[in-house]
């Protein structure tokens, strides 16, 4: 288990792993690193079944906050069913938040849709990102701050554009259409850390 200060700086990402969401996922990594936060996600859990859930629970518990994007409430996949993983992990985070200082942030692409899809979360006032990277980065600025103040949106946007180029190259090398693979995620995190250090957004 990481130490207390590291917990406060870690953010668990509970987001859809689909092709349309790929640029938003890259923007989340770029934005969080630029804000001095450490992105964590289920891609780090390599096992399956019960042990995967335990791993995700452990990851959530090691983060001071979590982002839950509930934009994928429609039917999807070959079986045409809704995906329950994200609401399920949000439930895990909510339970954690009842006994710890864990903070929950909900994101949605469309305004007021969450009122119908998950009315229990109405009080959490979701961040509406409109499916754009600017919306995501603006949302991050609404959620996170540091004692010295957060960098302006244009600096986060510039970081995200840079990381998008890296993501495209990494995906080509791994012959993948999206970045949802542990190795790509870690390379993107490292590229974001290197770039944020070079731009003096975070300290070495």
């Amino acid at each position, binding site marked *: 288990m990481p130490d207390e200060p*590291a917990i406060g700086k870690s953010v668990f990402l509970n987001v859809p792993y689909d092709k349309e969401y790929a640029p938003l996922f890259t923007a989340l990594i770029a934005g969080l*690193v630029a804000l001095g936060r*450490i992105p964590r996600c289920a891609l780090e859990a390599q096992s399956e079944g019960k042990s995967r859930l335990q791993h995700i629970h452990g990851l959530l518990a090691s983060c001071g*906050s979590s982002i839950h994007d509930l934009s994928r409430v429609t039917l999807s996949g070959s079986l045409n069913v809704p995906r329950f993983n994200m609401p399920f992990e949000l439930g895990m985070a909510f339970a954690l938040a009842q006994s710890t200082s864990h903070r929950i942030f909900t994101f949605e692409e469309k305004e007021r849709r969450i009122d119908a899809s998950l009315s229990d979360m109405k009080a959490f006032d979701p961040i509406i990102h409109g499916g754009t990277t600017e919306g995501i980065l603006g949302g991050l600025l609404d959620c996170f*701050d540091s004692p010295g103040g957060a960098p302006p949106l244009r600096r986060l946007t510039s970081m995200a554009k840079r990381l998008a180029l890296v993501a495209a190259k990494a995906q080509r090398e791994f012959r993948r259409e999206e970045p949802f693979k542990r190795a790509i995620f870690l390379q993107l995190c490292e*590229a974001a850390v290197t770039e944020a250090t070079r731009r003096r957004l975070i*300290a070495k």
Partner: protein
Amino acid sequence: MEHTKHVAPPATATEMRRLLGITGEEMAAARRLLRLTAGKDEIRSSRAAVVAKSTARATKQAPGKRGAPRSARTRTTRS
């Protein structure tokens, strides 16, 4: 309640790498990707710089030509 920002001091690069368990191999791969993708931007910007420089030189050397600064166009050249 949930609209207040989560405030924490920013993590350092060392903290981030340690927590994510980034290996030397991943660091090398990421730096290579950054180098490869930065190349395109640098080439583009250096090409633009060369074009701008040569345009500036051309307009300076050929006063009276279209595109030259007003001061250059009206300047009388000494023989």
